[in-house]
């Protein structure tokens, strides 16, 4: 009984860890792409446009996933 409870708690921690990692990883990935553009000599305006476009792309992707989850 105790071991089942402990495993349940551990499973929760694993899920929490995965979520936190995934979110941090999402941010880090964007940062790495900006780094790459910076190295290639992108201007401040180009970096901003990339970040804005990326945010809009993720909005569209998220909307598509929500629509799919609705069964649409």
């Amino acid at each position, binding site marked *: 009984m105790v071991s*089942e409870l402990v*495993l*349940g*708690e551990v*499973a*929760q*921690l*694993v*899920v*929490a*860890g995965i*979520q*936190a990692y*995934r*979110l*941090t990883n*999402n*941010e*880090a990935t*964007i*940062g790495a792409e*900006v*780094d790459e*553009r*910076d190295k290639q*000599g*992108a*201007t*401040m*305006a*180009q*970096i*901003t446009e990339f*970040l*804005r476009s*990326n*945010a*809009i*792309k*993720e*909005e569209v*992707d*998220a*909307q*598509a*996933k*929500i*629509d*799919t*989850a*609705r069964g649409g």
Partner: protein
Amino acid sequence: MRLLAVLLVALSGCGLQPLKTGKVDPGVSQLQVKAQSVINEGYRLLAASDKEIGQSAADGIFTPDDAQVYLNRAIASRKKLDGYQKLLNSGDINAVLSGANVEQLVADALLKEVLARAIAAKKKPTTQFEEFSPFLATA
């Protein structure tokens, strides 16, 4: 255990490198660069939120309606950042620094709320127990 989950949420995003700004024209002031950095960080936070919202909807962690509410907030926040970008382009730096700072905080808060909600939604002992310990179901 809840404390650990909260700590994970709090730690999310920590240790990330500040975003590079790219090549800055000689005539651009440090204040303009600072304002641009604030806006850029807001865009990064919102993109990460959007991705998490979509994935959580796909995984069934959020209902489609709940995910839609979060996504609508992220879109509204991004549109406000777009407005601050226009102000910055027109040279109104002070308005941008005060407003965009607030919006970045909003974006950050949204990101953490999405994550906290996703974690809380997973706290269903029987289903998650079966999901992560299928071997125990047969024990």
